[in-house]
């Protein structure tokens, strides 16, 4: 525990020395209302959120509470109707143009006419990387998600879970400092999910990436995150922000510890309170 705490301390010192750019995402009073045919939908209301470099932040909340929408705002796929947001100190659009993030969608969204390797290569082609660099990154990231040997297969020849892993490899291949992941493991079975959770955590610990992660699973959120954001619907807003004091270096066994269960309990209470059971 001591060693870990001191490791954390040194890191804090490190990050505070480099002035304020360690604030990766800064959201203030942000709201987003969709104008639909049946009137306005208040997808996000009055969101305040700060995410620091190296954070692993999870968004958790009932379906329709605006998790995807908030992630899309960060990625400049959706424009807020009010409030302020900056990513890496600049507007989301500028951050996107700087290729600041990799995005994993709720579905795999692979291009059906490209093989798996070619799908992973897609962002690399767009970035204009050399063929050798592309090959290197494809091989490395396909291995990371355990898809080595499937390079020449087409998406329809793979199971849904394998497709989703390919889409993760595609996002990782960009080697972004910020990873935005929308329920990336939602379609996978428990065992594969555990495995990928561990790998994602290792990757994160190794590279000091910032991850924003949407999930429906309480154990997943608690296991992965340094910060858990509980959202509630109608209008979509932040109900609770839980700073996790679990060590950064964790293994799956931590899920049996009282500290883990305590945080999980608080998340569950938040979800229950924010959830209206009107039928």
């Amino acid at each position, binding site marked *: 525990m001591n060693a870990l705490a001191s490791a954390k301390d040194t890191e804090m010192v490190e990050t505070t020395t480099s002035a304020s750019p360690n604030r990766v995402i800064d959201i203030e009073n942000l709201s987003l209302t969709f104008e639909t045919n049946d009137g306005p939908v208040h997808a996000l209301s009055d969101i305040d959120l700060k995410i620091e470099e190296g954070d692993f932040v999870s968004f958790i909340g009932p379906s329709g509470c605006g998790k995807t929408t908030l992630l899309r705002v960060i990625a*400049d796929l959706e424009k807020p109707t009010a409030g302020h947001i900056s990513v890496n100190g600049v507007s989301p659009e500028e951050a996107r*143009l700087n290729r600041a993030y990799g995005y994993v969608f709720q579905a795999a969204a692979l291009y059906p006419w490209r*093989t798996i390797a070619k799908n992973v290569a897609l*962002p690399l082609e*767009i970035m204009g990387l050399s063929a050798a660099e592309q090959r290197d990154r494809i091989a490395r990231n396909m291995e990371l998600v355990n898809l080595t040997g499937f390079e020449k297969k087409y998406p*329809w020849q793979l199971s849904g879970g394998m497709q989703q892993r390919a889409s993760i490899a595609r996002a990782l291949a960009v080697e972004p400092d910020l990873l935005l992941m929308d329920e990336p493991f939602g379609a996978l079975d428990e065992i594969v999910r555990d495995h990928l959770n561990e790998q994602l955590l290792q990757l994160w610990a190794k590279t000091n990436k910032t991850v924003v992660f949407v999930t429906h699973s309480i154990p997943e959120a608690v296991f992965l995150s340094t910060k858990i954001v509980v959202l509630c619907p109608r209008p979509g807003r932040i109900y609770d922000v839980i700073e996790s004091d679990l060590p950064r270096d964790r293994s799956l066994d931590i899920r049996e510890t009282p500290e883990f269960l305590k945080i999980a309990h608080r998340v569950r209470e938040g979800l229950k309170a924010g959830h209206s059971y009107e039928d």
Partner: protein
Amino acid sequence: MTDVPLTQPRSTNPFSGLMSGTVGPVTVVVLAIIAIWYIAAVALNTPFQKDIYERAGQSDVAVSQMVTDTLFQERPVLPAPHQVIVEIWETTVEKKITSKRSLVYHTGITLSSTLMGFLIGTTLGILLAIGIVHSRVLDKSLMPWIISSQTIPILAIAPMIIVVLNAVGISGLLPKAMISTYLSFFPVTVGMVKGLRSPEVMHMDLMHTYSATRLQAFWKLRLPYAVPYLFTSMKIGMAASLVGAIVGELPTGAVAGLGARLLAGSYYGQTVQIWSALLMAAFLAGSLVALIGVLEKLTLKRMGMAQ
């Protein structure tokens, strides 16, 4: 354990074998069409045959004799299938290709202007679609014109195009090809606009997250998405091109081509010649569309979009 027979007992229905697979049903349909054709030929040619008998003073001709005679008239209202087949045989296999009476020669003329018009029309259609998809101004300004262009009957403007182009010294293949172009660019434009706009939202979003340029999004996403649409509209465009080529041959004084054969045939009441030209045109259209179908299969297979 009960004994299960290894082979299913054959059904006692004599037609069950005939209707299984694809060869059987196709044969049945073709035979049915030929049978209906014969019956129609007899029915339509009977009045004229009766006239002939009357003029010749023959009063009671046996029915079987009359049926035979209706199928061997020189200028029947509706020629019988075998008459058409004999005519096609005589004008293809038994004539030199260079002869003006060779159907192969005329088919070749029509084919060349069909293909030329089709290539220009397809290229034009693709370019228009690219413009329309990428520019709101082009979409709003071009689309109404493109649609109204197709409401004008082709028979009305074909002579004008031919005459005008002849007046400025352009004759031969190009004027006819222009009419084919006029008919074939439309399905390609409409199909390609639909295809280029069909990518899933998530696939477009993905391009957006990569900050891909419009050119990159076009090459890597919109174009591959549009390929199946392109082939479908090319099949329609090809058939329309052939119609355009034949229509384009009518006002030129019926010199050469399948259209000329149709026109000459109707001048001189040569129904057998008309029908053999029609059959040839149908065969040509079928082959061209089938050829595009083969190209489509090969392309989609190469792209990994077909199993």
